[in-house]
């Protein structure tokens, strides 16, 4: 039975927090510069888009799905915000309205098609190419100007280790964690992920659940795009691409598995932190960015391998 209380999913991710603590201690000990407030501030700013996207991705993975299109959605967000002309008509926050509507539409399309039976990876690969095309159409080369008000807001530092992007990402995490672990919707996500047919028979509207999960993932992509705008102050149709792979990695490192209905957001939080800190430490140890591809790929593979070893459901995996 996986229809457990949310407490179980907090408990399940506790080992990850010890790993995180270990990485933190090793990082502080091995480089002088790691444990300074500027660097922690920096890590948290770098973390924020990844954390936001990974939170949305968690819902999708819990449903035995995957959302490859989030990276493209984040990129599209930066290009829409850098449109410029839009502000004349709707004010500085006008483009935000447009992009949220677009995000919901993309998520709706993904969720609907996947519910109808299109394989998640095909659907989101298709929509990611579609969205990438739109983003490249809006901005073939990186550039453009984002409204000063918006860009400044999304990169504001609030003193010590706090910044607006980090607070936004933590708030988003809290909202989604509340949704997933403390509401009926969350319970239905777990149920649908574990067994869609049974959930249907139990009277859950699994179509609604699937569509809402993909909308959450897409909107997370939009929010991540806004946070990226705070980092680059312009539009770039390819800037978010790596978020797709990274968010899946964070979710899997966080112990959510593709078997469906197993895992949770507290694991994802730890997963995102582990990835960001490792990336920061690798940078500070002057490890060339090329090696980071290799390391990230290996982390992805080994984390899922470990979580499968640890789970007692091995016998199911005859496929």
């Amino acid at each position: 039975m996986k229809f457990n209380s949310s407490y179980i999913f907090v408990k399940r991710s506790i080992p990850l927090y010890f790993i995180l603590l270990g990485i933190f201690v090793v990082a502080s000990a091995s480089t002088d510069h790691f444990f300074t407030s500027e660097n922690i501030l920096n890590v948290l700013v770098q973390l924020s888009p990844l954390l936001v996207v990974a939170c949305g991705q968690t819902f999708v993975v819990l449903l035995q799905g995957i959302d490859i299109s989030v990276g493209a959605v984040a990129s599209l967000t930066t290009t829409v915000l850098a449109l410029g002309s839009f502000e004349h008509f709707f004010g500085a926050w006008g483009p935000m309205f447009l992009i949220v509507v677009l995000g919901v539409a993309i998520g709706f399309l993904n969720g609907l098609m996947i519910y109808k039976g299109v394989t998640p990876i095909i659907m989101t690969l298709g929509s990611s190419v579609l969205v990438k095309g739109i983003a490249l159409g809006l901005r073939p080369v990186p550039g453009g100007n984002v409204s000063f008000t918006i860009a400044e807001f999304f990169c504001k530092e609030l003193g010590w280790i706090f910044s607006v992007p980090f607070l936004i990402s933590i708030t988003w995490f809290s909202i989604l964690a509340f949704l997933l672990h403390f509401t009926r919707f969350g319970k239905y996500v777990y149920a649908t992920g574990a067994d869609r047919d049974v959930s249907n028979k139990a009277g859950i509207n699994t179509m609604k659940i699937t569509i809402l999960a993909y909308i959450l993932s897409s909107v997370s992509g939009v929010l991540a795009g806004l946070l990226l705008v705070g980092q680059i102050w312009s539009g770039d149709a390819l800037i978010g691409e790596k978020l797709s792979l990274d968010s899946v990695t964070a979710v899997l490192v966080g112990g959510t598995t593709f078997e469906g209905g197993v895992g949770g957001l507290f694991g994802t939080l730890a997963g995102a932190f582990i990835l960001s800190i490792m990336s920061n430490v690798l940078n500070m140890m002057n490890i060339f960015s090329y090696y980071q591809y290799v390391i990230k790929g290996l982390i992805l593979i080994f984390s899922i391998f470990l979580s499968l070893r640890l789970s007692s459901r091995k016998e199911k995996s005859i496929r």
Partner: protein
Amino acid sequence: MKEWTPYILLGLLIAVLGIFSPSSMHISHLLTVLAQAAPLIIVAIGQSFVIFVGGIDLSVGSVISLANVLACSLISGDASRTGTTILICLAVGLAIGTINGFAISYGFIPDFVMTLGMGAVIQGVTYIFTKGSPVGNVEGFLLTLANDRFLGIIPWSVIFVALVFALAFFMLNGTRYGRKLYATGGNATAAVLSGINVRLVKTIAYAISGVLSVTGGLLLSGFVRVASVGIGADYVLYSIAAVILGGASFAGGIGKLQNSIVGALTLVFLTNLLTILRVGQPGKFIVQGSVIIAIAYLYVTMKGENQ
């Protein structure tokens, strides 16, 4: 109806292409298009093996790029090194594919996580190997294979693709391995119970995909002549799209190799049509994405009707 859908789609597309640009219906132009489609067709054949067995290979793009930079730097203008280079590249592809298949079937790692991770690792290795600025160019055999024509009419690459196709077709439809592959893709548990070594069958399918990705990458190197990081990136999407356009089921066990070829040709002609209509790269992405979604949905609804 479903049987014929891939052919109807391709036929319609060619008809539209003929209307917009009658000159592109000339036989020599069609052969040129076929020659350019050769690398994609080869990679799509590998992808077909994996999808028929119920998996997916997202590492093909990185493998193609690796084959390209490896071949260019090893040959680097000296045609006499071609033979050894091809063997080394094929061995690398075989190793990558085998590792993928082994981890997926013996380590129970989900197929797309494994191949996505492997793709990232290989991409990193390619960058490390080239230090970001790839060097060298291919010579001799690979250039001939990609650019010359048999009797000045039929491109060698088309003949080569036909040979690869014939071999793969025979493997799938004329050998015990092919029957085991379809059985495994259709119902792995039933296959295990009837004594098939499912894990070995899957591992071999991924190994074939690895080898064919490298083969496609080598042929592509013949076309572009020089090394270029990231040259294979688009092939992940295109190879999967080709198999989908061919109507294969992602549940595995269903699919025809000839349909995947038709799917690959559909993609190539679609891209050609968009180029003739002067649609830019953004527009191409939009159309390709929409077509993939629409066709995937079309086949899903058709499957529903059959049941």
